[in-house]
């Protein structure tokens, strides 16, 4: 069975690298993007099974991508995991309609939490 494909969109390269290593260790096929524009390009190439998404990034923020995902039938149902330093400020009711299945708080999460969240999302 082919490995599930996870797209990580995260502007901090070192944080991205940590997430990537952790998911690859769990045998996920990881694709990385450092901003939403790059992320959209990766989605255009191949729709991932799950997206791990930072909230604030250079250029368009996560909401722009979430809007975009909802605009197309082939991406509207892709589960999204938000991973942010400001989890308590994210309006969870508002984003739940955008396919966000969980919100990880970078300031309190354990490295294993991202793999657990991806498994729950699949």
């Amino acid at each position, binding site marked *: 069975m082919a490995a599930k494909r996870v797209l990580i969109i995260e502007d*901090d390269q070192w944080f991205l690298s940590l997430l990537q290593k952790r998911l690859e260790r769990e045998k996920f096929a990881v694709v990385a993007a450092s901003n939403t524009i790059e992320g959209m390009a990766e989605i255009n190439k191949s729709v991932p099974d799950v997206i791990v998404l930072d909230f604030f990034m250079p250029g368009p923020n996560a909401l722009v991508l979430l809007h975009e995902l909802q605009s197309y039938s082939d991406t509207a149902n892709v589960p999204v995991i938000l991973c942010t*330093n400001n989890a308590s400020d994210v309006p969870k009711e508002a984003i739940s309609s955008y396919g966000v299945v969980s919100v990880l708080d970078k300031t309190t999460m354990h490295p294993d939490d991202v793999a657990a969240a991806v498994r729950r999302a699949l």
Partner: protein
Amino acid sequence: MEGSKQQTNRLDGAVPTAPSFVTAAHELKSPLALVRQLALHLESGEVDSKEMQEVAHRIALTSERALRLTTDITKSTRLEDSLFSLEPLNPIVLCQEVVDEMKPLYAAHGRTIVLTSRARSLLALANRDLLRRILLNFADNALHYSGEGPVTITASLRGGGSYIRLGVRDYGPALPSVMRKNVGKQSTSVHSRPESSGLGIYIARQFADAMHATIGTTSHRDGATFYVDIGASSQLRLL
């Protein structure tokens, strides 16, 4: 140069009126969260000796970034109680010191920072520590909020030799046009980047004010230049 492709704005009167504790806390969250994750990664025991060295280096550099910010915050709150002496200094030498200080952090991110200046002999009247902190602030901002291109520090004599502009040019996302339009409005917060709290710019402006300098930004199609204008020393005219 100030045509339709770029727009220059002074950042006076258009930055947050004061950094709140909440703003400072938000700004510090990012490096602290990263240090914690890197430490947890080390603790997992799944790293070989080479990676351990790399992760430890990243922890050190990220901690230094957080410490720079805390030092800037504390210094900015004490500006009114302090007198900052202005001295004639060579801004090219100072810019090179900033480049040398930031090089390890840039290199660890696979990025480069260089100094380019066509001017040979410049003499500015400024406070060395405050000017250095402004440039470090801009350089740190450029690293974390711009794209993958090189960051360049430039120095040039302007205004018929009356002032010197030191700029940090990056190739990140351009400032949104709505933000540029609002720059002159007193009540509007101008952030260094859309995703930034603006604390760094607030502090840079405080430091600039303390030595009678001004800061500003030029938005390019492919990035931005954050600059500080400082008075040229009259001693230059005697040279």
